[in-house]
Structures are given as structure tokens and as C-alpha cells.
């Protein structure tokens, strides 16, 4: 175990926190001067590698993004590994390299961690937990700031990650163009703040997809949400997979797409910034005191509710 930690794990993070890790103290000593944001997440993905990413990339981006969603820039990450006996060393190295690469891009250091190995069959090849601390650059970003008339923007097309993982898991042949949207959102959030946008609330649309996020915003604010189907970008590949299995693209997970709520004054500026990062970014709707729940308006004027997803996604029968 010591050899694994020293030669594989410390080595993987040598460029992103190695100097602190190698001290091998019981705790890392960190320097931070501003208000702090702190978040943790555990990552369980099957398969470990998929089109557009892997569990290491998600483990880094997931926590960096959770922190970015409150207007904070991640500085330090922990990395706890739960490994299944028999996991190939090459697989572990590839995952750690991917995790380290994302941290390097975001200027984040991995400064502490933990490793456990469980007997074969006791865990599904590997689980990763990352926690992160971050400097808050923009205070007051959160559901408490949501208000009637706030504009909702979506940073890109939806459902890619869920569709890719589902396809890979079921050995379903898919177009080579379909890749997970898994990526760090730190850059786009920093760009928004630098452009003078004051986000009221941001939330990345991970498990449960866009539908879960919109319902959370509605519940937390006590306001209704009205969004237009025509403005929500969905790739043909994702739509096709959803049609085959009977899923809603609104319920599929994303790993690099987020919903941004801003005051009407900030809408245009925010959209311009988002579009620099993703051409499919769009203004999709607004919060309204006059409505309740999440309402989806169709292209031909009908309306229906967008309910939060219920449990595991099961395909339709015929």
C-alpha cells in the first residue's frame, strides 16, 4: 500500500499539490485569505472510461464545478480512493492522470487524500471522493437570491453525459460525434464574473438533469419556472437515444452544463459570455410569481409540467 501511495498516487499529483502531499502529515496546512466555499462529492461511474471523459475527469470537474456554482474558485482538493482488489495499475494511473490534468488546467492542488482497497466483488472497480475548498469571488450566489422575473440561461445542449454513459453501459452503438459534456465550468464562471455579470444563482445539471435543477430552483424560491422547449438545445444523437429507450432528455445527466439565473439587466451580457464558450447556450425562460412548478411550453403553444425525475431510469417496454 505504501508503495502504491508513494509511487503511483503521489507521483500522479506531483505537479498539482505534490509538495504538500509529500509532507504526508495527518492534515494539509493551507493558505486562504478570503471567505471559503467547501464542497464534497463521491463519484461512481460505470464504465470508468467513456466518450469525452472518465471517472478521474469527473471527480475533478464535479467538485470544481460545485464550487464554481456558488461563485468560488477551487484552490485545494482532497482525493479519496476506494479500489477493488485486482484493479489494473494501468487503469488507476490513467484515471489519476486525468484527474491531475483537470486540476492543473483549473489551477487546483490535490493536497490530501486516502486510499482503501476492498476485496474483489465488494466495490465496482473504483470509487472516488473529492472534497474541495475555494475562494469566494462573488458573494451571495445561491437560491436565496432568486426573485420574480429572474432570467434563466442554459450554458449548452443537454443530456450528453447521460446518453453517452447509457450507451456505453448497454453496448449500444452510437455516433462517434456524441461525447460527454464533462468539463470544468470554472473558466466560464470566471468570465461571467469578470464581465460584470452578477449571478443570482447557478446550478450544474448533473444527476436528474435539467428537469431536476429547474424543480429545485422552483421549490427553493417558491416561484414558478416557465421554459420554452424550442430554446433548449438537444443534439440529434441524444434525442435519438431518448426516443429509443423512452427517456426524456431533460432528465439525463450532464457533467458540464449549468443553469444560470440573472437579473433582466444582466441577461444579454451573460448570454454573450456563455456563447463564447458554447454556441448552444441560450436564454430558456424565467421565474414567475404567477405560476407554480416547472412548466414546459411546446413549440406549438401547449404546456405541460416538467416533473422531477423519479428514481432510476428504466427503459420503456415497447
Amino acid at each position, binding site marked *: 500500500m505504501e508503495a502504491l501511495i508513494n509511487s503511483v498516487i503521489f507521483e500522479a499529483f506531483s505537479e498539482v499539490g505534490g509538495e504538500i502531499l509529500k509532507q504526508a502529515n495527518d492534515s494539509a496546512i493551507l493558505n486562504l485569505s478570503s471567505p471559503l466555499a467547501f464542497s464534497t462529492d463521491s463519484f461512481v461511474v460505470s464504465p470508468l472510461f467513456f466518450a469525452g471523459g472518465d471517472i478521474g475527469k469527473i471527480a475533478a470537474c464535479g467538485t470544481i464545478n460545485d464550487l464554481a456554482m456558488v461563485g468560488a474558485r477551487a484552490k485545494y482538493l482532497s482525493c479519496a480512493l476506494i479500489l477493488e482488489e485486482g484493479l489494473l495499475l494501468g487503469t488507476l494511473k490513467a484515471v489519476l492522470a486525468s484527474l491531475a490534468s483537470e486540476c492543473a488546467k483549473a489551477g487546483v492542488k490535490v493536497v490530501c487524500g486516502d486510499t482503501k482497497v476492498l476485496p474483489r466483488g465488494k466495490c465496482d472497480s473504483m470509487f472516488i471522493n473529492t472534497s474541495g475548498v475555494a475562494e469566494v469571488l462573488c458573494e451571495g450566489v445561491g437560491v436565496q437570491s432568486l426573485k420574480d422575473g429572474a432570467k434563466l440561461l442554459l450554458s449548452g445542449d443537454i443530456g450528453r453525459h447521460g446518453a453517452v454513459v447509457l450507451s456505453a453501459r448497454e453496448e449500444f452503438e452510437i455516433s462517434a460525434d456524441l461525447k460527454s459534456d464533462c468539463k470544468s465550468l470554472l473558466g466560464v464562471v470566471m468570465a461571467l464574473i469578470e464581465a460584470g455579470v452578477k449571478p443570482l444563482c447557478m446550478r450544474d445539471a448533473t444527476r436528474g438533469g435539467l428537469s431536476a435543477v429547474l424543480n429545485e430552483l422552483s421549490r427553493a424560491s417558491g416561484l414558478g419556472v416557465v421554459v420554452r422547449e424550442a430554446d433548449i438545445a438537444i443534439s440529434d444523437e441524444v434525442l435519438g437515444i431518448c426516443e429509443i429507450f423512452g427517456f426524456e432528455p431533460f432528465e439525463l445527466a450532464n457533467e458540464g452544463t449549468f443553469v444560470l439565473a440573472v437579473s433582466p439587466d444582466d441577461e444579454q451580457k451573460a448570454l454573450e459570455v456563455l456563447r463564447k464558450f458554447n454556441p448552444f447556450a441560450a436564454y430558456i425562460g424565467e421565474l414567475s410569481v404567477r405560476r407554480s412548478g416547472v412548466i414546459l411550453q*411546446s413549440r406549438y403553444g*401547449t*404546456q*405541460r*409540467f416538467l416533473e422531477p425525475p423519479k428514481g432510476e431510469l428504466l*427503459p*420503456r*417496454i*415497447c
Partner: protein
Amino acid sequence: MDLINDYRNSELILALAKQIKAEAATLSRPINIMEICGGHTHSIMKFALGELVEGVVNFIHGPGCPVCIMPVSRIDEACELASMQGVIFCTLADMLRVPGSHTSLLKLRGLGHDIRALYTPLDALKIARQNPDKNVIFFAIGFETTTPMSAVIIQKALDEGVKNLYFHINHVTVPAPLRAIMADKNVNIDGFLGPSHVSVIVGSNAYKELALEFKRPIAISGFEPVDVMASVLNLIRQHKRASFEVFNEYKRAVSAQGNVKAKELVAKYMRPCTFEWRGLGEIDDSGLCLKDEYVSIDARRVFALQKEQATKEAKACICGQILRGVSKPPECALFAKACTPNSPVGACMVSSEGACAAYYKYQRRGA
């Protein structure tokens, strides 16, 4: 042609809605159209098509969800088989959630039993090959759409000499429950939206006799909004001129004869039998079971099942009336209160193709 977006074209949909309203203007009351298939129920709710034809069309939800019509007794059998030692129990999707008398497949999976929801039934064969020391049981469900796939797996298993794959056949057919519904005096249906996927197999000719027998028009419709609206328009026109024809709107997939090869394959391994429908009771020749010469792969006969009396369905649950098209989900006292997708009482709430699940998901607050 784009098989998704072109059939969701808003200009076409709005034009069809306008035509439907114009045609219906001379009718003295709204036309009652039953969609036989749960897929149509979901399309109608998902795209809120009822709004476009409000006041002129009353959609009635039929018995065409294979999960909703499964009686508690069969779910109890599934749970009993799935609880046996050395068994890998395979079925499709929503069946996992349906409550039996005492438990559900999902709860049993939580207790550690090896129960798998397959994305494709062919996986049952793969699982049997990979686990020669286990008995793999495939709980086959569905209307004419999914029956040929079960027949294919049976054929492959027999050809390959796979000895550890057993079948619990719960396949059902469309015409028999329709006859049961039309025999109910409380039912008031002016026309039917014929199922899409079922019709790909059985062919449009299969409905000619029913249309004449019921003296009602049938429009075989695709699942997309343009399909449904075009079919509704046809049904209104037929209703006005009192014709009882079978209109094949879904010509891009449905032929007059259907899939002859598939039908032959089903007939090779299965025969009609009595099936107990939830809400409709026992109907002669409405289900399929394995022929006697295949007794060695018939899970119901190979594994001695307890003949325990199934628990009666909840008294307040009106799934039976909903499946007959007599009531709508919001009329049930349990709807969205004691009965929700997370804690379903009746089968119509369990299945994603069920009418109650569709109402709950898309229209609950508006109901």
C-alpha cells in the same frame, strides 16, 4: 426525412388542429377517441395534444400497457421465482416496480436476489450462457410487439442447446381486451387510435374485422404529434360519414400483412390461452403460453409455484375503470395522494406507459 423533428413540426400540428376543429364544428358533442396503446397516452400527455383539440376531442385511455394489465397473481409468481436459490430473474423495466401481494421485484432485488431489468430481451440468452450454474428465468411481457422477440430467444436457446434458460410467458394480444371493453355498456367510444408497434407485427388487415364488428373507425397511428393529429382528423371524418374503415396513418412502418415471419415464429412456440387482465378479469384466448412440447423450458411448469391466493387489489383503486376507459386518473380518490409513482397502489401508476403515470407526470397540477 427526419423521423423525429418532421413529425413534431409545429406548423403542421397547428394546421391539423385547425382542421380538426373545423371538421368537428358540426358535431353535437365531443368525439370520444380511445387510444389503445400506452405509448399514445404518453405522447398525448407529453405534447399536451389535448389542449389543441379541447372541447372537440375527448381522449380515453385504453388497456394497452403491458405492465398495467398484469394481474397481481402473475406478479406474485414472478416474486416467487425470483426468490428461489440459484436463480437469475430477468424482466423488462417497469415490471420491477409493480407491487405484488407481499412484495415487489425491486424490494427483492434490495434484499440481494439477482433480479435484472434488461434493455434487450436477447440479454437473457447472454446471461444464461455466462452463468451455466444458475437457472435464468425470463419473465416475458408485452403485446404482439415484444412476443416475436421472446420467440427468437426460445429458438436461439433451443438451437444452441442452452439448458438453463426458462420462460415465464405473459404475452397478451390486442383484440380480446377491446372486445371486453366494447361489451361494457358504460363505455362510449366513437373511434380508436390503433397501436403503432403492435401493428408493425400484426398488420393493418388485423383490425378490419374489429372495425366492422364494433362499427367504429380505427386509425393506426404513429406516436409522434403529427401522427396522432392526422389520425384524429381521419377518425372525425369517418365518424361524420359513419364509416368503419381501418386507416393506416403509420404506413412508414405498418403493412397490410404485418411481419409474417414474426407471426409464424410466435405460432411455432406459443398457443392462445386464457389470461387474467387486471381490471378486466379472465378473457379466453387473450394471452399466449408455451406449447406443450416446450414444457421443459416453461418456468411455470418446471418450478412448482405455490398456488397462494393473491391479495385483492386495493378497493379504492379504479385501475380497472381506467383501463376500460370509463374513468380518468384524476377521478380516483387515491390519485396523487396515496398513489404516486414513488409509492404506487395501482398498476396504471407504476408503469411509465400507464395513464395515471402520464397524468401525474405531465398534467397533475392541471388535473
